């Protein structure tokens, strides 16, 4: 039995179970049947809401994810490399990574306005810490033998950093970004609480408010599927372009 057949099988089983649950177990008012959700999605597609929301949300998620990673990787590297940097920055990393983004929404609006910027930065905020922590642990667990080998071969500290530390910590950065991708998706709901008029998170909020459970589920499923697809793309990238750096971590 080929591998995707197992996956197809289990997805089918769960969808059937879902259908049964919404028929007999749970009030379909709260768990609409798969067909109802499909129907809701169809409505939204026809109106163009769904496509637009997907585009808008994906743009925000991916920008925030990239921005967050772009900020986090250098900090994580610095913290992993230099004990002084670590002691300077560490208290903040391990403080702010526990502070919910939602609590900072007000400040973000004041600083970055009510446009796209504050949403993207909110997402970047939520993703940056995972990437930072993973990068720093990656750097600090590079085998000393490898670093020393490079130094004995004449690499100066800059070269050790760029030619050994970065390639050797790519697996951790990669896995960190993969985990952080989920965070980006998760905070889109919070980010689109503020000053949004489109997006999947926005749909989730307004349908909650107006009790359009089928729309809400359609948006949730769209989020899940987009996340799944992005994750697969990221894995594909790891297995092709970055293969030589990531041998061993793309197994899962």
């Amino acid at each position, binding site marked *: 039995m080929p591998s995707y057949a197992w996956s197809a099988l289990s997805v089918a089983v769960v969808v059937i179970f879902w259908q049964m649950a919404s028929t007999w177990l749970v009030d379909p008012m709260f768990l609409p049947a798969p067909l109802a959700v499909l129907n809701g999605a169809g409505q939204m597609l026809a109106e163009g809401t769904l496509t637009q929301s997907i585009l808008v949300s994906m743009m925000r998620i991916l920008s925030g994810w990239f921005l967050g990673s772009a900020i986090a990787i250098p900090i994580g590297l610095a913290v992993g490399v230099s004990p002084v940097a670590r002691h300077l920055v560490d208290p903040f990393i391990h403080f702010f990574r526990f502070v919910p983004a939602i609590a900072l929404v007000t400040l973000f609006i004041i600083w970055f306005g009510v446009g796209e910027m504050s949403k993207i930065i909110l997402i970047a905020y939520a993703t940056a810490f995972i990437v930072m922590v993973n990068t720093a642990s990656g750097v600090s667990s590079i085998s000393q033998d490898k670093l020393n080998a490079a130094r004995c071969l004449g690499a100066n500290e800059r070269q050790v950093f760029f030619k050994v530390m970065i390639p050797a910590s790519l697996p951790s950065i990669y896995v960190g970004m993969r985990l952080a991708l989920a965070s980006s998706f998760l905070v889109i709901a919070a980010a689109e609480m*503020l000053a*949004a008029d489109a997006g999947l998170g926005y749909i989730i909020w307004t349908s909650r408010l107006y009790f359009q459970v089928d729309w809400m589920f359609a948006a949730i499923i769209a989020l899940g599927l987009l996340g799944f697809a992005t994750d697969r793309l990221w894995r594909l990238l790891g297995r092709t372009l970055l293969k030589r750096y990531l041998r061993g971590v793309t197994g899962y």
Partner: protein
Amino acid sequence: QTLEPVRFGVDAYTTGSQIWVAKEKGFFEKEGIDAQITTFATGVEAIDALLIGRADMAVGLDFPIVSRIQGGKLTVLAGIFHSKPGFHKLVVSNDIKDAKDLVGKKIGIATGTAQHLITMKYLEENGIAEDKVEIVGFTSLLEIVASLRSGRIDAAFTWADGTEKSTDGGDHYVLTDDAAAKRNSSAYIAAQTEFTEKHPELTVATLRALNAASQFIATNKDEAAALIAKNTRAPRDTVRDLLNYNEFALALTDYERAGFKEVADFLAKTKAQPVSFETGVNPKFLKEAAPDLVKLGN
């Protein structure tokens, strides 16, 4: 005599004031009710809890309640409070002198609340088409005030102490209030339909207790404010102010009916099944508990 348990879902705001007061002052006990109160962040969660059978009665603003009536699972028993005209104030930046200056400006709304509808009606009343202004949706008053004060939006209806907070910087002033929007908005107490059918007397008893609480609030605002503040962890002075701005009384009148209809019409755009005051509200219980509070014309 044993007390009958009734489970209430309330939000962390003053929406459920009478419930707190009735509990604290023993009005529930007098009616033979053991009130079990659960607090939620907003009315949405409270009413959802009701729908799924985790609460027997819940309070909520018109929006979440009206949008959840269609299944027939919940029955609105009465309006529990409505804001007095002037509760919402239109705060604008100093360069806006007139309603027509709003054209092209950013206006903040609290999506899906009474304020949302007030804003829309206000624009309509002043002949400003929706696409002539930029509507920015928020989920809380704090963000609206913060956006006003930091110049991220130009105007918004604010309420409660948000008004003072937005204007005390000197860059904003109150242009007008919600009287100009000509809109009625209320909060309701709703019950599970099944509960009302099974325990009609208990339902009526509850309304009696809440009515007693309303009267207590009307006459003892300071003490009531202290009781509510204690239970919601809200600052006492803020609560005291809120009690002034709002009318805490059970009612089913044409005022409620008009407000209900506005929301229903608004929601009709998005809902498959239209809802109406007649299908969603059952005045029977309030009539029984306090006949003079039901004043519905034809």
